[in-house]
């Protein structure tokens, strides 16, 4: 095998990519592929990948089988055809697939170029100056957001008991995370009493109390009481997102309350 054909182990996207690369680098006419040579080069690549412990995946094996099958068909005498009928080339199907693949590779490159142009132009819309302020901000949502959100809700539901019944070893940091998740997920203020009532045992209760104090100190939340002896509610402080931007405050808490 030609030394210059040393397999490139930078990943091919799939078997068709590998085949196309072999053909292009040797300037082979795709309509007349020397199937024996290409098959042995292809198998060499697979062997090489195996030695390097690269998992190529089932599709590479599938194409290898196809190549071997084509090779054996080409060795057999051509089947007799009726006059005027083209003899069938065993390679035709694979060639078609390769051309199809190449077509979309070209299309992908075209998209990349278009994207490049878009990256080089800027727009500076000023619509915010014309939109009434009282409109609720919110997120523009699509169907995918809907599924994703539902999945998150279910995941939260699955994890929830850990916070509430895990008994003695609840930490302040865990309770901070619990409060944070509650506030992120809710538009409305959270009633302090209700979350205290959900705690089971003294230790989680104490940890929650300390967590509330910590969050006030960090300026992540504010406590509000409308009337004397009225309900105390927790709201996000305007610094809420800033506080939780990094893990630092949480790490500090973890260290502070070992």
């Amino acid at each position: 095998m030609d030394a210059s054909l040393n397999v490139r182990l930078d990943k091919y996207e799939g078997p068709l990519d590998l085949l196309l690369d072999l053909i292009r680098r040797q300037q082979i006419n795709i309509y007349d592929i020397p199937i024996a040579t290409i098959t042995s080069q292809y198998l060499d690549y697979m062997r090489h990948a195996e030695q390097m412990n690269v998992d190529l995946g089932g599709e590479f094996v599938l194409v290898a089988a196809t190549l071997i099958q084509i090779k054996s068909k080409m060795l057999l005498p051509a089947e007799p055809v009726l006059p005027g009928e083209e003899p069938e080339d065993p390679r035709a199907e694979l060639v078609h697939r390769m051309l199809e693949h190449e077509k979309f590779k070209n299309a992908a490159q075209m998209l990349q170029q278009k994207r490049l142009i878009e990256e080089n132009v800027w727009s500076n819309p000023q619509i915010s100056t014309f939109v009434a302020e009282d409109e609720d901000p919110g997120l523009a949502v699509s169907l995918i957001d809907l599924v994703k959100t539902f999945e998150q809700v279910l995941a939260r539901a699955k994890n929830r008991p850990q916070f509430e019944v895990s008994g003695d070893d609840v930490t302040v940091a865990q309770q901070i995370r619990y409060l944070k998740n509650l506030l992120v997920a809710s538009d409305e203020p959270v009633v302090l009493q209700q979350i205290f009532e959900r705690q089971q045992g003294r230790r989680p209760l104490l940890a929650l109390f300390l967590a509330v104090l910590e969050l006030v100190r960090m300026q992540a939340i504010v406590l509000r009481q409308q009337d004397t002896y009225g309900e105390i509610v927790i709201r996000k402080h305007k610094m809420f997102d800033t506080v939780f931007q990094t893990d630092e405050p949480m790490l500090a808490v973890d260290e502070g309350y070992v």
Partner: protein
Amino acid sequence: MSDLPVALPEAEAEQQRAARKALLEAIIYVTEDPVTLEQLAKGLEWPKEEVGALIGELVAEHQAPARGVEIRAVAGGYKISTKAEHHEAVRQFVKTLKPPLKLSMAALETLSVIAYKQPITMPEIQEIRGLTAASGVVKTLLDRKLITTAGRKAVIGRPILYKTTREFLVQFGLNDVSELPSLKEFEELSRAALGEAEAALG
């Protein structure tokens, strides 16, 4: 004949002038804060007098009645904005645009629960979301006509059942609720995405 060594032929000079004016307009257009003469001259490495003269021309040209935006000197810099005389009309027009469906995170969560579990009652929604307060959000969704009531559930308290509406289908481009991607399908996608990310790292 010009006696300056660097002088360009007239046509070429005119071309350069046009190109520089265009670039100045582009920069003033994109910058968020008013950009000053000094910033422009320094950043572009052009003589300050030339930048000043070109901006003067730009300002004058934008005054034409057929132009909708103007370049204004603001806070010691330059800024492009729409002309005051159009503000009312622009405001009116913006109001006629149908805004994309925007929902808060809480509303989106509640809507997703209703979409996948309909018909469903408020206590059940609260149970799944793990939150006590959800009634305000349900009201928002009712107001937006994304959900509607679907009778009452035959349990103690006979709570109201909620389901999604036709408007919901329209907003999310569905023909039918059965077209909602199943959670299983979505999980497979997510898992595949994770797997491929790991493969890429490994």
